[in-house]
């Protein structure tokens, strides 16, 4: 079923609401597209499939945001990082539950999901993923 879903941002976040981290995989060259998109940027193929990514990665870099945008102000200061997933693709997100002084480049993190989206008429209706310490 998921193989037929459109390769859109909207669909990516629909999967997030099902607590699944999904990327598109190019069936021609094997590249994983994250964000998903309708055309493989490497070989231009449109022969794609949705694949579920393992939620595991390593922290490549991080910051602590003190001056936050409006919708994040209640969380500030918060940690933000870029992780590289085991599949080799990268993702930016908030890091939760790690003391800021314990953050280290290279530490193991996992992706989790906050699917508790308050009902609101405002666009977009997307849930969020976030990163947390990996439990071995």
């Amino acid at each position, binding site marked *: 079923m998921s193989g037929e879903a459109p390769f859109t941002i909207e669909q990516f*976040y629909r999967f997030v609401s099902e607590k699944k981290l999904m990327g598109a995989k190019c069936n021609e060259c094997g590249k994983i597209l994250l*964000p998903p998109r309708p055309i493989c940027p490497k070989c231009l193929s449109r022969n794609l499939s949705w694949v579920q990514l393992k939620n595991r990665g390593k922290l490549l*870099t991080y910051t602590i*945001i*003190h001056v936050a945008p409006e919708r994040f102000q209640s969380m500030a200061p918060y940690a933000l990082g*870029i992780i590289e997933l085991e599949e080799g693709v990268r993702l*930016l997100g*908030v890091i939760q539950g790690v003391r800021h002084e314990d953050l280290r*480049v290279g530490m193991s993190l996992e992706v989790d999901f906050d699917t508790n989206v308050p009902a609101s008429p405002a666009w*977009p209706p997307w849930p969020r993923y976030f990163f947390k310490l990996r439990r071995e």
Partner: protein
Amino acid sequence: MRGKPLAAVVSAGLSKFGRRDGFSGRELFAEAALEAFERCPNLDPKRDIDALIIGNMSESFEHQCHLAPIMSDWAGLLPAPSIRVEAACASSGAAIRYGLFAILTGLYDVVMVGGFEKMTHRTTAEATEYLAMASDFPFEQWNGATFPGLFALMATAHMHRYGTTEEQMALVAVKNHHNGTLNPKAHMQREVTIEQVLSSRVIAKPLKLFDCSLISDGASCAILTRPEIARKYTDTPIYIVGSGHGTDAIGLYERDSLTSLDATKRAAKEAYEMAGLGPDDIDVAEVHDCFTIAEIIAYEDLGFCKPGEGGKFIESGASTLNGELPVNTSGGLKAKGHPVGATGVAQLYEIYLQLTGQAGGRQVDGCEVGLTHNLGGSGATCIIHIYRR
């Protein structure tokens, strides 16, 4: 095409940068245009200027789209055709490039390029929100990224990989604030010390308030002509001899490197090759110091020093006014200010002053070759130009 003059710059103008209460973008642009006209009495703007290409980032600040006809009108250029180009903070760098292309087609002899942004009437929260629109909405803005945050991610990676320090970043602010004190049009005209930078409040660790450029109001313009007719208008033209444009993925996380910007490296390669020049030939440069780490990374990507040695480069004093390669003699985005859409042409304005010996107390003696480096967003766009006397 190697080393050949592609277009001449026969005049340039810049509004005072800073908090310009009571003025709108169009009035600031008129102020910049007027300076360019006054510098070039042989030019009749209405008769001679064939077109206007204007850079501006965001219609949100003044609730105004369809900006190009307004700027053309307020500069007295109607009915010259005009168009706005947008590439986030590289919008007017892009205006230079497309002005150059317009000249190179042979369709136009004289083109005005420029840029403006009116920002300070908005709250910091509003300005931050509008600026953040230059990053990716679904994967960066939606997940808590800010612009200082994205450059802070690069700073952490650079510190981790190369041992770059917060003190080295602070030196960029100290240098550019010093240069700003010598520029009467700069937003900030006040020295800062390393200690002040290091003890200023954290915006996005490791970047502090004094690592960040300013939210400013301002406008800039320059008049480009075919090289062959430049001397009709002025005895002291400068020439654009190289132009480069790099484009990369919008998301920082999507790019191969977190410590270097491919868009800068590609734009630099194109511009250097076109000019038949290399980094060693540059006498003076204006680089995009939206955050102090950005200037350090620019040194490396432009080939002013080796990868990873940008911190040592600022420490060596090489980029100070009296150094071997003065960088951001205007005060840069850090002290001169960063009305985003105006920045690319404001960099050209500084190089124009330097190469024509009009830079006053910050004049670099005997400079012949200048470079401008203008970034859009977190580095998805980079526009570079090289100029000769």
